């Protein structure tokens, strides 16, 4: 039973590994790897113990708070929180990390900076775990930003490739934009409640007392503080999880090595956003009860989630690069999760998050194994025919696809997606989430089948694919484990046995009767079938032979396909708006600098010159001549006096004596009278 006070050990182990790895000289390649692995397994064990402890008393929020530092008279307090949500997530993260670590040993064996890679990975995992068990929003922000830093380092791991460096910067900047919202939310929270601890024995932010206060404080325009803070925090989540407006960085993040994409951009980091929203769910939900509020926080989340889900799916369809397809698929799945939280089913969201972590990591590692085998060939147009060559990867990839698409009953994806669709269906506010979810299901099925067909079926279209062969055992082992997980993960949360839900919420959940959910399940299975059929029809039937041949979809709807391929020009849009805005402001600043200040200085300079000129004129004719005459007069009078200096000492003495005598006489006569 891991007490709350020892919780910090979980993030500490990988952090220590990262620190030692960083300090180790560059030549030591093996040390950081070994350290990282040892640390992550240690953390896994600890988190399992913590989970057991948490599950024992799901409702109790075991906290260990401490003072970070004292500013003025108020102490800034941080803390660790042990609860089912955090523990479960940390187990999931550790598990996936272990598998990814094992996978990357083989994947990056050739890379000279393997040590540096594992150090960054350990740093990332440490930050992520810190984030999960943090009991204070400030500590969460601290880890949140460290996670951003780690992702920056990892995306830009091959920093000598300019595209990787640009992608890293883009990722960091955009997530930081989101973080601003997070920071403002934190500040507002701090200002409103005076503390940032979630649970602090009644005084915590997420506890009843604070929530009423927040809900009560109404800002002009009807907003309640709770909503405002919630939305601001959600902005941070949007940035980190690549939701609708700030999703552009995620596809570019694929520049990083595939294990990075698998771990960070599939399972863990992007999930942090969802975790954050899940963690502060009570705060977000505080204003549910109030009618007057113009926008409920959760509705906004739901709307953004559904849009993202839809958008991600649509964009994924037109991507040629394997990893980009998976990236957009992640965006869309994250949309689902946000949608779930928006509609109030944060447990479903967490459930989907866990299942998604498993099968998305599997898919990414699968693609990694493909890329590794095909000598870093990522473009699906030049792949194909790998089914025969990489049978094991193909099978595991199929299992992953099944889970992602949500093939019924067997795969975990199905159950978690069902839970979300079920909740969306019941959502009183609007049907947008439900409809988006359904269309998403179809599109997901379509683009996954497209991906599978393009990559694995048909004949190899590039020489990379030509002599691809199965990846070594070290890489295929994690694939197998993940495949099993992506199937088994579903069972913990099926409606029949809602173990997960009861554990997370703490309140026992009655098992659902088969009847009410059945309809929805059937309908979604049908939709999946439609998606797969369409995908097979387009790509599976006559797999393309020539790499340069137009994509069948492009043949049918060229303009639509081109638009989607170009990612709906979001980057250009942003470049146009935000980029230009900033450059414009900077230009303005530079202009200001040169003209206004320079101008002012220049102006004063010119004014000085003119006054100087006028002054010279006055000075020259007016004063100087007069002055010269005066000085001549002075010189002449001086000559008279100089003649008095005859050099005759006795002459001087005489003068002295006379003077003295006269003076004395005056004194005496004056005195006497």
């Amino acid at each position, binding site marked *: 039973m891991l007490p709350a006070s020892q919780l910090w050990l979980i993030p500490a182990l990988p952090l220590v590994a990262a620190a030692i790895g960083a300090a180790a000289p560059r030549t030591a390649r093996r040390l950081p790897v070994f350290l990282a692995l040892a640390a992550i397994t240690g953390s896994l064990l600890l988190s399992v113990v913590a989970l057991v402890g948490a599950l024992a008393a799901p409702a109790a929020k075991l906290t260990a708070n401490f003072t970070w530092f004292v500013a003025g008279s108020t102490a800034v307090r941080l803390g660790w929180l042990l609860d089912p949500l955090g523990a479960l997530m940390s187990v999931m993260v550790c598990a996936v990390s272990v598998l990814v670590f094992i996978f990357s040993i083989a994947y990056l064996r050739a890379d000279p900076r393997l040590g540096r890679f594992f150090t960054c990975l350990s740093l990332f995992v440490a930050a992520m775990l810190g984030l999960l068990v943090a009991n204070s929003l400030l500590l969460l922000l601290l880890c949140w930003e460290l996670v951003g830093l780690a992702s920056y380092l990892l995306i830009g791991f091959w920093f000598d490739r300019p595209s990787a460096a640009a992608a890293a910067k883009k990722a960091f900047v955009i997530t930081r934009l989101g973080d601003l919202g997070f920071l403002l939310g934190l500040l507002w929270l701090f200002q409103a409640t005076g503390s940032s601890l979630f649970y602090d024995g009644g005084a915590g932010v997420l506890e009843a007392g604070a929530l009423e206060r927040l809900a009560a404080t109404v800002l002009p325009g009807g907003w309640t503080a709770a909503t405002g803070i919630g939305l601001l925090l959600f902005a941070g989540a949007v940035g980190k999880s690549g939701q609708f407006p700030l999703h552009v960085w995620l596809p570019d993040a694929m520049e990083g090595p595939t294990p990075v994409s698998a771990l960070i951009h599939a399972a863990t980091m992007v999930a942090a956003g969802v975790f954050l929203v899940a963690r502060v769910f009570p705060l977000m939900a505080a204003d549910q009860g109030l009618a007057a509020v113009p926008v409920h926080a959760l509705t906004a989340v739901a709307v953004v989630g559904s849009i993202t889900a839809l958008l991600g799916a649509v964009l994924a369809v037109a991507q040629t690069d394997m990893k980009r397809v998976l990236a957009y698929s992640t965006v869309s799945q994250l949309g689902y999760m946000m949608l779930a939280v928006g509609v109030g089913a944060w447990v479903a969201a967490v459930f989907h998050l866990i299942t998604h972590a498993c099968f998305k990591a599997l898919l990414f590692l699968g693609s990694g194994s493909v890329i590794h085998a095909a000598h870093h060939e990522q473009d699906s147009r030049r792949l194909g025919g790998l089914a025969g060559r990489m049978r094991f990867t193909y099978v595991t990839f199929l299992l992953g696809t099944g889970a992602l698409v949500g093939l019924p009953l067997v795969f975990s994806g199905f159950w978690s997606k069902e839970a979300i669709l079920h909740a969306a269906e019941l959502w009183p506010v609007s049907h947008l989430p439900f409809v988006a979810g359904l269309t998403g299901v179809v599109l997901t099925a379509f683009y996954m089948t497209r991906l599978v067909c393009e990559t694995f079926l048909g004949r190899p279209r590039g020489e990379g694919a030509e002599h691809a062969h199965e990846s070594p055992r070290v890489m295929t082992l994690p694939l197998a484990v993940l495949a099993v997980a992506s199937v088994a993960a579903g069972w913990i949360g099926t409606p029949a046995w809602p173990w997960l839900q009861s554990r997370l919420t703490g309140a026992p959940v009655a098992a659902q009767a088969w009847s009410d959910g059945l309809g929805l399940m059937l309908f979604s299975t049908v939709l999946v079938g439609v998606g797969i059929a369409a995908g097979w029809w387009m790509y599976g039937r006559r797999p393309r032979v020539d790499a340069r041949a137009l994509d069948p979809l492009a043949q049918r709807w060229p303009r639509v396909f081109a638009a989607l391929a170009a990612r709906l020009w979001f980057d250009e849009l942003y470049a146009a708006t935000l980029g230009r805005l900033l450059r414009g402001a900077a230009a303005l600043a530079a202009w200001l600098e040169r003209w206004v200040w320079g101008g002012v200085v220049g102006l004063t300079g010119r004014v000085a010159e003119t006054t100087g000129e006028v002054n010279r004129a006055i000075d020259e004719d007016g004063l100087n001549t007069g002055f010269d005459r005066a000085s001549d007069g002075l010189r002449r009078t001086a000559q008279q006096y100089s003649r008095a200096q005859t050099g*005759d000492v*006795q*002459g001087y003495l*005489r003068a002295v*004596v*006379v003077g003295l*005598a006269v003076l*004395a006489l005056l004194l*005496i006569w004056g005195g*006497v009278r």
Partner: protein
Amino acid sequence: MTLLLAVLALVCLVPAVAAVLVRNLIHSALLFVLAWLGLAVFYLAVGAEFIAFAHALVYVGGVSMVVLFAVLLTRPGRVDPLPPPSTQRAIGGVAAVALVASMLGSSIFWTRLPSMEPIPMVSLRRLGELLAGPYLVALLLVGLILTVALIGGLLLAAPRRPSEGGDA
């Protein structure tokens, strides 16, 4: 008592005035010495014994020798380049002195001088105690001044070896 003092005053004054007026340098120097002797006697008459002898010893013994040596060493050369002193200077000088004399005279005869106290007798021992007591520092300083003056005078007056420093 006043009569005696008046006589002695004359004895002291006449040589002094003569010394200033006489043309011959040696004679004026010797007359000065005589005036100093007269003054020493005057001190004796007034009762300041020790001062008188000290004065005599210093002036007649020491200073007169210095003066005479100076006179001998500065015999004018063959030709006296400058014209004889202009009378204009004499008149100016005398006028100035007359002014001073009138000032002094008027101040002496006008001020009401205090009455005569009983003759204050100062024993030599008392004088010695004063010198050794409060004025010890002054005594040492005077010693210092004398040595410095001695050495200074020597350096100034000693004819510099040709190598040391040329003079016109």
